[in-house]
């Protein structure tokens, strides 16, 4: 809580000081997006390459898996061989998932 407030205070104070002492001038050109000097054409909020989305989905799958692994990693020393064998099945399913995605070509950047 303290840390969150500290972070917010840092940004607020820095921006506050900057806003207080920085000069201000108006020029219609300033409001334009900087795209190397040529006038902007169209909006930027448009259709975008789907490849990024694919990787995001893949990441979601693996990230949820790591969350499960964390809780297992803490107790694996007590579980011993039993823990090793049981996680083997879990990892096997996961690796199969990765292999499937690989085979399907989801890891290619087209």
């Amino acid at each position: 809580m303290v840390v969150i407030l500290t972070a917010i205070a840092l940004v607020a104070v820095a921006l506050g000081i900057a806003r207080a002492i920085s000069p201000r001038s108006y020029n219609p050109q300033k409001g334009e997006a900087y795209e190397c000097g040529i006038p902007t054409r169209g909006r930027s909020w448009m259709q975008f390459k789907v490849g990024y989305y694919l990787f995001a989905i893949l990441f979601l799958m693996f990230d949820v898996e790591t969350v499960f692994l964390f809780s297992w990693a803490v107790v694996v020393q007590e579980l011993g061989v039993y823990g090793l064998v049981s996680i083997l099945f879990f990892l096997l399913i996961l690796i199969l998932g990765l292999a499937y995605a690989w085979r399907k070509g989801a890891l290619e950047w087209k």
Partner: protein
Amino acid sequence: MHALLTSLMPLRLAVFIECVIVGVCLLLMYAVIAVVMIFMERKVCAAFQCRLGPVRVGFWGLLQVPADVLKMLTKEIITIRRSDRFLYNLAPYIVILASVLAFACLPVNKGLEVLDFNVGVFFLMAASSIGVVGILLAGWSSNNKYSLIGAMRSGAQMISYELSIGLSILTIIVLTDTMQFSEIVARQADGWFLFKGHVPALVAFVIYLIAGNAEVNRGPFDLPEAESELTAGYHTEYSGMHFGLFYVAEFVNLFIVAGVAATIFLGGWMPLHIAGWEGFNTVMDYIPGFVWFFGKAFFVVGLLMWIKWTFPRLRIDQILTLEWKYLVPIGLANLLLMVIVVVFKLHF
């Protein structure tokens, strides 16, 4: 200090004042680390390119970065006309919040850390992954095509490499069976995990360094802000202090990556001990813990800067291939190897 404050004033006020003191200390350390990191980056970069780097302002250029901060404060903050105002202003808050939260977890010395949960490592990873949201918001809300491309690349890269970071940290957690930072450091009193876990720990360390470098968008993985193609990437439309906050967060994130590497692989504030060398160990014990911590952290930072200024930039498909086809399978295999080592007690 708690006892002194509570004897002078009611409990609530004492707690409040303690919170304020902790917050101010945290801020000061955050700012100092950022300044030191930026200065170090400029000097290291200059050394690698056979230049002098900043030398004019102050002795040996030492006042260059404070001067830059002042300059940054006096610059106008411009918001472009067609941007999404709310998200545009929210983005720096999220980026800084993520990095301050992660920063607060680092154990600097014995008992000297702001947050020390029993799920510390996990919390740190969760907190630092909020940063991706901030970067995506910054790129999206700017309504600039360069920003959008930069943010998308950055998002894809950061979430991908987070997996490898997670797997390499998991490898060490299997060895320690705890996620609390203070405990992790305490377990390394008789040998750092890099040496204790021998082969799998070493592999995990290398994977961590690569993934950590990619996670902070640096070095050969800096294509989210590839200057020659994207101007400045996701913060193209941010000016003055707005930009400064992104910049600071980036450098402190680099320090956090290095600090975590120092803590979980290189023993945090634990001095270097070699079994059998009593005199050597006693001398090492005299060096205070925070010197060890910062020494190790800045050693890793130096390593990452060396990598950054040595390798050429990768392409986006190469980056994703490296992660998904090499680092993730190797990481998983390495995790299994570590479990086998731990279960059959093959570690030192």
